[in-house]
């Protein structure tokens, strides 16, 4: 049996609503549950609405922000109880991020090779040949020290910069890689190289990858499991292909229908624009209700809880009521 490696239980993050409706708080992440397992590496994708809390969730798992409720554990140990330099170093060598905006990852005043070599030396202080580790990591993402080493971050294209930040993240050979929109800035062919790289990291090093993306097609291609996030909630999670081929939650259905097909003959689609910012987050009941074609009266009053539905877990009243 595989053992629980990462456990996220009822994770909550609250923020104050700025400007528009001041004084109130909302849950950017609202009772999210999922697990990853040792010995069963997976690509676990999180797809969802812009502003639904994907980055916030990933930042909690990375210990960059604290959860306001629930627990997040790595090998049974609460992340909030990790203390001291040694504990932090150990955590960082096991869970590594790739951020959404590579321009923020890099120090603009530091050359790219310096940055990567520092990372290698940081994690492997006794290694006499850190350059070899850097070269290997760069090779895995289709770059080389010769080509980009002597440059400063602003001299690289967006795509080159993002590949460099992936190279940095894989230097310590982490067990879990959290990639927040790692391919949104790179070309379609390179996207495939990167997601194939995820598969090979999974197979070669048993690395699990949490892949946050808006690109349904690459998520379908690479993921084992998938979670659909809407306004802080995992509305549907389960096997990636099952969910994308046969979505059950009304939001997932909308998402799959809205996804553009890369074909000039793709169909048009009529959408119902979302409510004004902030309103949905603080609304009572299901936060998708007012856009939902299948919503009943009770959906505006009752927040659905998780139910198991065949291969998946879903939060929708339609499936709560027997």
């Amino acid at each position, binding site marked *: 049996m595989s053992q629980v490696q990462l456990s996220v239980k009822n994770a909550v993050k609250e923020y104050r609503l700025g400007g528009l409706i001041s004084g109130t708080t909302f849950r950017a992440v609202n009772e999210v549950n999922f697990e990853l397992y040792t010995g069963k590496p997976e690509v676990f994708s999180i797809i969802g609405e812009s502003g639904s809390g994907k980055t916030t969730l990933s930042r909690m798992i990375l210990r960059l922000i604290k959860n306001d409720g629930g627990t997040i554990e790595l090998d049974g140990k609460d992340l909030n109880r990790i203390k001291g330099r040694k504990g932090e170093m150990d955590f960082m060598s096991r869970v590594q991020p790739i951020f959404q*905006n590579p321009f923020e990852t890099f120090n603009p005043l530091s050359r790219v090779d310096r940055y990567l070599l520092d990372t290698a030396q940081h994690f492997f202080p006794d290694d006499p040949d850190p350059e070899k580790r850097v070269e290997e990591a760069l090779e895995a993402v289709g770059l080389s020290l010769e080509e980009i080493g002597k440059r400063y971050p602003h001299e690289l294209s967006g795509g080159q910069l993002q590949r460099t930040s992936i190279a940095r993240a894989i230097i310590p050979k982490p067990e879990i890689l959290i990639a927040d929109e790692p391919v949104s800035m790179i070309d379609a062919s*390179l996207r495939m190289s990167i997601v194939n790289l995820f598969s090979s990291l999974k197979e070669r090093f048993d690395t699990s990858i949490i892949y946050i993306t808006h*690109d349904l097609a690459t998520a379908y291609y690479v993921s084992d499991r998938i979670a659909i996030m809407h306004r802080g909630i995992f509305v549907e999670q389960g096997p990636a292909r099952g969910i994308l081929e046969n979505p059950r939650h009304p939001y997932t259905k909308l998402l799959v229908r809205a*996804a*553009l097909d*890369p074909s000039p003959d793709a169909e048009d689609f009529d959408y119902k624009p979302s409510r004004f910012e902030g309103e949905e987050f603080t609304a009572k009941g299901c936060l998708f209700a007012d856009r939902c074609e299948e919503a009943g009266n009770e959906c505006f009053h009752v927040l659905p809880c998780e139910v198991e539905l065949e291969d998946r877990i879903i939060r929708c009243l339609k499936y709560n009521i027997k």
Partner: protein
Amino acid sequence: MSQNVLSVEQLNAVYRTELYGIKREVKVINDISLTLKRDEVFGIAGESGSGKTTLIKLLSGTHRAPLTVLGGKVSYDFEDRDACTDVLNCSRADLDSIRWKNLSYVMQGSMNVLNPVRKIHKSFIDFAYRHMDIPDKDDFREAVVTYLAKLRLPAEILNSYPHELSGGMRQRVIIALATICNPDVIVADEPTTALDVVVQRETLNLIREIQGQQKNTVLLITHDMAVHANIADRIGIMYAGRLVEEGKTRDIFYNPSHPYTQHLIGSLPRIGDSSHKEGLKGNPPNLASPPTGCPFHPRCPRAKKECSERNPAMEMIGDEHRVACYYHGAK
């Protein structure tokens, strides 16, 4: 007025850098010729680092050192006959006077068009007020509100700061800003990346709707081929600082002729298709010392000897379909 609103002739540019006394030239734009018609959406796709953002810096006249023009011409044919047309040689003041009014551009990472410490309303005043010939500030605000409503944006957002809006909202505000003066040409670099697919649809429908009404020319850069398929009339494909293929959207998708384009289209994943897809083999060319001959030859499955010796020029192979490859007929 000619049919074309922009013509680019044999544009060449380099990034000229000096490090420890060693001069280096990154050959970023190589011999690009291109025309944009009135009332069309022209999409540009291409490899990361192939020079797309650099190209639009040149087309908007916003290039600065170390980016250096070696030769070529960029000229617009704006409806307003007094506007400056030769943007590579316009003064700063002239460029400022055509921005938003004749030529709008939204650069990559466009969130920073909006000043983070100024309310949205102020951004409209900063950018659009002087072009709109509505001297009274209240009337101006009224006009902005009316325009926003047309784009289904609530008037309240004018009192918000950029960070208070979601990515999708901000994107729509930027589109409103870029189009409110009804410019001849709108250039947008990755306007829908980082948006969820529902908001992306919304944004694209919006761009289409505005373009349909105003009949402007939209130059759209994105890596998302599905976006091009959905919105572009014609598409140009860039590789290593060159335009390697150009054609109507249907031709690019159904009859791609350059081996790079063929690979790009062939490697697109789709929901429901679980076949293995490969990224392009080999490394992207180093533009500081590009390969001899055709820059794609080291990675090309059909390269022959001459491909490493001479660089193929763009050749017309069909109705509005051009390609730079000696063996474009081969599969």
